[in-house]
């Protein structure tokens, strides 16, 4: 008998014509680790919320959801609330209290657990999560990853039997995301907790998941063990989900297409190493070094800038210099809190460096007038909604055009939105658009003033792989047309695939600066999975799948 049974479940939101979920059937055994993935708007969150009765949205529900062989409604609310835990996507918004300890005990206090038992549970949980040092810290001083750990711990204190997590890692950097996933794995393995996790970054969860669900348009498209799901998606050549597969698996199928039916496929670096050892006879084509034009025009230059936020504080940026040349696609990578976002703020004149200066077209940034600066550079913050003061994209563009006294507004709006493929959302309320659409709409705002430089802060945060690919293509096209792009990112795979130059920010300084390939191939840890696989192996070292396809000469096997 299954722990959770979902039978022919359909769900429809009140004001919509389409069903958010249709004909969903699924069985989950106790102690299983389920990973759910799919493009945004495919009904993942709705599915998760159906299992957490307090959060179930209003709408028309048919079919059966059974928990421990009884319908969910037959349980007491209080019991369900304890037994089914839910962790949300945004680490910031689910924290309610000012300090960590109060946040941890919030659920316990609500359930009227007495003080002695609370103390015992908290002591244990704090130890397990290693939260001791920050127990009395203010919650807003924690990093995103720490916040999410606190959220998880707070839910676990209620001792749930089933844990639901809605994209808990989407706002975290790769390291923090891994740490959180490792905790989930431990919970699953050491305590046998049943976990349902909605996640975009499948590469990290393929190993720990027992079952993978790929959803699209409110239905389950693929369901099964990780490796068989990979195989099915590849066999069907399913565009919707190809982007979700780990790059080593894709490499495997590309090199040895005849092995597709054997069912074996490497998903981790370790497995891929084993596979590559067997592989013989691949050598690289000598690529002609791309000829770079000798003299390039510097667009944006930082010369020895220093910055700190408060008088007593430490320097966030110290003696930092770099130059962005015309037509560069620059990726600035670095750990959390290394000052990447601060650097972008210096470049856009949001904050002023204490020492040193930023030059735009060889002129100091502070000599520009404000309205001229807005026409010269576009800044896309992490939260694209911040760019919008008006309710719709059209209104915002019209206002912007008035503010900067531009002409042919109507025409320009039309051509720009058509180019970006967002003409249909011109009149939609911006909060109703999906994350990818919001990102593109914000990009439209920036491009409207025809800037020479684009500064982008973490564009891929929280995006599903397909939207990521679309956004990347957009950036590539812009870059191709001569736009200079400076992008700050955690996403090494994204940087490796698209940027032509890469800077590593560490300790407030640019420590490495060079072509992306060179910089990342020299790293041991801060590099792509494919690079970790192919380094020191008998095949030529590559960074991306595309590079492998381009440069490897695979012998035709008889």
């Amino acid at each position: 008998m299954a722990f959770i049974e979902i039978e022919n479940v359909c769900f429809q939101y009140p004001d919509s014509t389409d069903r958010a979920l249709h004909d969903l059937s699924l069985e989950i055994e106790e102690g299983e680790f389920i990973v759910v993935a799919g493009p945004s708007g495919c009904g993942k969150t709705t599915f998760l919320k159906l299992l957490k009765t307090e959060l179930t949205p209003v709408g028309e529900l048919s079919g059966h959801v059974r928990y421990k062989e009884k319908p969910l409604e037959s349980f007491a609310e209080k019991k369900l609330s304890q037994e089914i835990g839910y962790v949300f996507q945004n680490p910031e918004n689910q924290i309610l209290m000012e300090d960590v300890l109060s946040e941890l005990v919030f659920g316990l206090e609500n359930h009227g657990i007495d003080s002695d038992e609370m103390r015992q549970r908290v002591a244990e949980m704090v130890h397990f999560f290693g939260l001791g040092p920050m127990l009395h810290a203010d919650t807003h001083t924690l990093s995103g990853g720490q916040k999410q750990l606190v959220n998880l711990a707070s839910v676990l204190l209620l001792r749930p039997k089933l844990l639901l997590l809605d994209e808990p890692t989407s706002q975290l950097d790769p390291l923090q995301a891994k740490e959180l996933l490792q905790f989930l794995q431990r919970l699953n393995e050491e305590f046998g907790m049943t976990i349902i996790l909605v996640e975009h970054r499948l590469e990290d969860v393929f190993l720990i998941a027992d079952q993978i669900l790929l959803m699209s348009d409110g239905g389950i498209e693929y369901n099964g063990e990780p490796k068989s799901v990979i195989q099915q998606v590849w066999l069907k050549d399913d565009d919707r989900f190809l982007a979700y597969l780990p790059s080593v698996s894709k490499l495997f199928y590309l090199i040895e297409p005849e092995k597709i039916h054997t069912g074996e496929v490497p998903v981790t670096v370790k497995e891929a190493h084993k596979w590559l050892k067997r592989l013989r006879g691949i050598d690289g084509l000598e690529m002609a070094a791309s000829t770079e034009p000798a003299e390039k025009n510097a667009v944006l230059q930082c010369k020895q800038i220093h910055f700190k936020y408060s008088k007593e504080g430490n320097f966030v940026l110290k003696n930092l210099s770099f130059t962005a040349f015309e037509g560069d696609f620059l990726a600035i990578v670095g750990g959390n809190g290394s000052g990447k976002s601060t650097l972008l703020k210096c470049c856009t004149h949001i904050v002023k460096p204490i020492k040193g200066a930023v030059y735009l077209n060889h002129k100091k940034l502070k000599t520009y007038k404000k309205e001229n600066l807005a026409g010269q550079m576009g800044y896309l913050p992490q939260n694209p909604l911040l760019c919008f003061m008006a309710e719709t994209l059209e209104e915002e563009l019209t206002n912007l055009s008035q503010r900067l006294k531009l002409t042919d507004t109507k025409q320009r709006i039309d051509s720009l939105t058509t180019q970006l493929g967002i003409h249909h959302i011109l009149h939609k309320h911006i909060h109703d658009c999906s994350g990818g659409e919001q990102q593109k709409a914000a990009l439209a705002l920036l491009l409207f003033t025809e800037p020479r430089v684009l500064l982008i802060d973490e564009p891929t945060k929280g995006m599903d792989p397909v939207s990521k690919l679309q956004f990347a293509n957009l950036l590539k096209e812009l870059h191709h047309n001569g736009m200079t792009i400076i992008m700050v990112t955690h996403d090494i795979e994204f940087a490796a695939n698209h940027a032509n130059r890469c800077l590593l920010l560490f300790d407030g300084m640019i420590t490495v600066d060079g072509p992306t390939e060179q910089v990342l191939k020299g790293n041991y840890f801060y590099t792509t999975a494919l690079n970790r696989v192919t380094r020191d192996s008998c095949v030529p070292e590559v960074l991306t799948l595309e590079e492998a396809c381009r440069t490897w000469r695979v012998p035709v096997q008889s």
Partner: protein
Amino acid sequence: METSLHHHHPFINLLYYGCVGVLLMVFLHPIFLLTAILLLAMVNLLHGNKEKLKKSFPYFIFMGLMVIVLNPIFVRKGATILFYFRNNPVTLEAIVYGMVMAFMLISILVLFLSFNHVINSRKFMFLFSKVWPQLALLLMLTIRFVPLFIRRWRELYEVQKVRNHSISQGSIRMRASAGMLYMQKLLTWSLEEALQSAESMKARGFGLSKKRTAYQAFQMTRRDWGMVVLLGVLTVIGIVGAKQKHGVLPIYPQLGSFSFSSTDWLYYGVFFLLVSFPLILEGGEQIRWHLSK
């Protein structure tokens, strides 16, 4: 800096401030109050609250001066008339009374500086969640919301600055309308985020049980109870003494002598002991530390 007082049970903290507050109001004598101001300033320095003290002290002095000046203008009681101000008598008694009031005001303000440093929001919640848990929770949520709102404002302002949408340019009307737009955006944004917070509360069973319990991070030890008794006894002695007009400067109708009788000295000692309680605690801690090494 965390002093010894910080590490004591919040109830002890509260009791100390309460008791000192009461004694400051009953011992209306310039020497008592001046002593208190000095001691409390030292307590603040011990907390490492020097910057705040330095910043606020001029305001305190200003408020004190206002009281000293205004009291004789409005109060005509008192036997010793010094001069006439617009045909109204200005008496020595009224001036001295104003001074005593000013000292009391300043001492209470300095006391509050220390109170703010020692009783943080956590301790505050702890103290009041027993009396009224729902209100305490509401307060906690609000306390967190204010800095959150300010952080969001700053974030929005920074982004819009680059977009040439500033509230510090143009005519007053333009600025006002831009400011309103900012406010509107900020509220929409915050409301949307608050919806998620509400879901998070619901998901953790908020409002399911009638009775909400409170996690007790602090426990009263026997030593703490001893301190409660000590503080209580000192305060009661003080109040009883003040009732019998000891340690209180007789002002109206005629100004009495500033000099202390021997019983006055006794009450001065009690008062001194109570106000310097944090200093004694800290000193004790230091001595114990040195002896134990």
